[in-house]
């Protein structure tokens, strides 16, 4: 099971939007089965990141975090969404 952590400033607003869209896009491609998606505040990332395979963030993320990070903006605006989903699939070898 690949674990994705979706982060935003409050942990409730844009991370909810991005996580929901990401899940739907993965479902569309038949890739949702082996993925778990969790949300958090960006401030919690340093404590949590190590337990996840990929971080999708709608804010800037500290460069100290070693888990790969992808920008979640395309999930909110729709601009470049296919490319970012490709990137998620590639990074997680789905």
């Amino acid at each position, binding site marked *: 099971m690949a674990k994705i952590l979706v982060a935003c400033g409050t942990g409730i607003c844009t991370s909810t939007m991005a996580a*929901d869209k990401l899940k739907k896009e993965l479902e569309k491609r038949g890739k949702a089965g082996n993925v778990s998606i969790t949300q958090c505040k960006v401030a919690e990332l340093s404590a949590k990141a190590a337990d996840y395979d990929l971080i999708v963030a709608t804010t800037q993320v500290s460069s100290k975090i070693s888990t790969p990070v992808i920008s979640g903006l395309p999930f909110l605006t729709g601009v470049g969404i296919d490319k970012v989903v490709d990137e998620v699939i590639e990074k997680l070898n789905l």
Partner: protein
Amino acid sequence: MKEPMELLKEELIFIDIEAKDREEAIEKMAKELYKREYVKESYINAILDREKVFPTGLPTEEVGVAIPHTDAIHVKKGAMAIGVLKNPVVFQMMGMPEENVNVNIIFMMALDEPKGQIEMLQKLMSIFQDKSILLKMRQAKTKEEIMKSFSNAI
């Protein structure tokens, strides 16, 4: 779970907002939310401060939008205000503060329950991804037109 339309109130739609910068635009809308008792007074500074740390400008295909919001502790009852600006103001881009976005429409959220507003957030996203709706909202002359564009979105 609240229905999306329940959170959008006609009294919270503002057309032709005149503001010299994003602070003025945010402050004007936040004060309207406070005046109508949707949020605590602390919401006004909290949303201004949060915008500096976590900017919310989003470049959609045609129309720049911003979704300022802050923590639920400043909120009394969940709502969303929509403000159409007379002239765009510059917001920093979400996640990339070195980039600027010229924003025409502000969707200011007062979120009171962490998980309860997913439908409204989903609706907002489908609006952001439909340039014809955003163009209509930007050109709207009345609050009714905004309400209609919003409710017509999937």
